[in-house]
């Protein structure tokens, strides 16, 4: 009773604020909350012509199939594995480049190279597909035309699954390192010069200054980016994987992640029950993971907690 009065009173005084927020709330209600009802598909054999709750209920059959066929395990392994590599290499490279860049003296050179390193972030993922086509296609790709010129045998990259593990990682770094580098660079710029001056007077050389001042000062930024990344560890870089691999079944074993599997089940095989089940598994697993991570962080250091 008391609570309802509170809401009513608040609504009376701030009705305009409620109104301004309303479209946003409706958007998320429609776009994010309504689909949650559809989770039920995961437990049915889907039929496009009947309504949601008239579809045949099959219990956990879809999950059982995904589990028994080993698909779920492989997808989880790939998704998490790639993400861990992305997080580690991405941050190491971004920090290294940011530190090197921050020590440069020539302003124009610094600005120019920073812009160039940030450039790939801005182009679409479809361009990745163009690049891969340009460099690796068997008949006329840059790689093979160079190899032929050198008198070497052309290679069929599209039929060599292990290569793609590296290609995916390389192209991930190519596309994303610039973005985190800019963030790290911003926090390096924020470090007070006094620390460095004091260190210089004490005779610390450049490597010592980086190791004892710059890197420790980047900890907050690193933890922040790390937590964001951990929160979405079950979500793959769908655009990246799909544009590089597409529907090339030869490569699925090493390059299929949950997102690509769900997308393909929807677009190609139209297996609604199965792909909803895989999607639900992804969502739940991710949810449990982020809750656990957040709980641990709260216990270690409250300030860094996500919520």
């Amino acid at each position, binding site marked *: 009773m008391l609570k309802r009065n509170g809401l009513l009173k608040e609504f009376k005084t701030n009705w305009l604020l409620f109104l301004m927020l309303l479209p946003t709330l409706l958007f998320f209600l429609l776009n994010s909350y309504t689909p949650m009802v559809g989770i039920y598909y995961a437990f049915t054999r889907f039929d496009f012509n009947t309504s949601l709750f008239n579809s045949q209920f099959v219990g956990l059959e879809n999950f059982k199939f995904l589990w028994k066929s080993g698909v779920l395990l492989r997808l989880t392994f790939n998704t998490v594995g790639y993400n861990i590599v992305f997080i580690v290499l991405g941050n190491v490279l971004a920090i290294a480049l940011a530190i090197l860049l921050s020590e440069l003296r020539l302003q124009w050179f610094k600005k120019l190279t920073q812009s160039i390193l940030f450039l790939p972030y801005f182009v679409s993922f479809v361009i990745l597909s163009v690049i891969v086509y340009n460099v690796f296609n068997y008949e006329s790709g840059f790689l093979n035309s160079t190899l032929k010129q050198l008198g070497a045998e052309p290679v069929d990259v599209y039929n060599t699954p292990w290569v793609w593990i590296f290609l995916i990682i390389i192209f991930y770094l190519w596309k994303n390192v610039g973005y985190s580098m800019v963030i790290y660079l911003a926090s390096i710029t924020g470090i007070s010069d006094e620390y460095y001056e004091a260190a210089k007077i004490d005779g610390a050389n450049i490597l010592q200054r980086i190791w004892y001042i710059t890197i420790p000062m980047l900890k907050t930024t690193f933890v922040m980016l790390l937590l964001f990344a951990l929160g979405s560890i079950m979500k793959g870089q769908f655009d990246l994987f799909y544009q590089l691999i597409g529907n090339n079944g030869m490569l699925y074993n090493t390059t299929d992640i949950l997102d690509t599997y769900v997308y393909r089940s929807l677009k190609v095989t139209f297996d609604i029950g199965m792909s909803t089940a895989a999607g639900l598994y992804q969502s739940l697993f991710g949810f449990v993971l982020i809750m656990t991570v957040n709980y641990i962080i709260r216990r270690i250091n409250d300030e860094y907690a996500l*919520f």
Partner: protein
Amino acid sequence: MKIKEDSYMKGFRIVAVIVIVCASLACLFPFLLIISASFTQNESIIREGYKLVPSVFSMEGYRTVFQFPKQVLDAYSVTVFTTIVGTTLGLFLMTMAGYVLQRRDFKYRNIFSFFIYFTTLFGGGLVPWYILITKYLKLTDTLTVLIYPGLMTPFLIILMKNFIRSAVPDEVVESAKIDGANDFTIYSRIVLQLSMPGIATVGLFLALHYWNDWFTSSLFINDTSKYQLQYYLYNVINTMSFIAGMGAGTGISLGQELPTESTKMAMSIIVTGPILLLYPFVQRYFVKGLTIGAVKG
């Protein structure tokens, strides 16, 4: 007093320059390959493959694109339209939301913030969302579906909220209220004015999303004349028959004569061009925005 540079410094700088130059070249290299290929004669691509420097210079790729511009122009207009409408509408809604959610005297701001944030933690997944849009909202092959899903993201709303909080002092809002301004007037006259750098950053994120979006088209659009630019390019690159269809409807048969390889690359340049041209002017705002966002958390 000048402090003496330590002996490592010189060597370190040299290493830094070398590493940075190498990394920059690695970032540029793929673009150079595409640009070069777009200016290469098709026949020589088929004979010798793609190269860093065109062996036979030719504009035929571009000529082909401009000879039958209908499909590209369609895709361009779809993308320009969705980018402008989506960015404007998205900014309007998200600045309002950000403003309301950062108002300290708005009692339920935390509950509503969590309502929005929760969607990043858990969701129904791709398939139920797809079925909602195709089966219940019936938005297949409409421009609406290209615009509406990208209007807002929790991340951008939080970013906007932080921007506004740091740019608009509470006292300003208070005194405007005492002068009799209502909340919407305060928002439109004061808040928008003060948080311009933040709006620019969020706007750029939005515009970039719409410009580079191919995913929405791939799910919901079957009518080729409504393809977004990037999805159109995707089809040009990956579907053999797509280029041959360029002349369709004009009554001119293109047959085998079409320079497919160089046309693919020319198309990529035409699609990416606006981004590359605007990039030098735009990236400053991104850097500035990310800096504020990173520092304020």
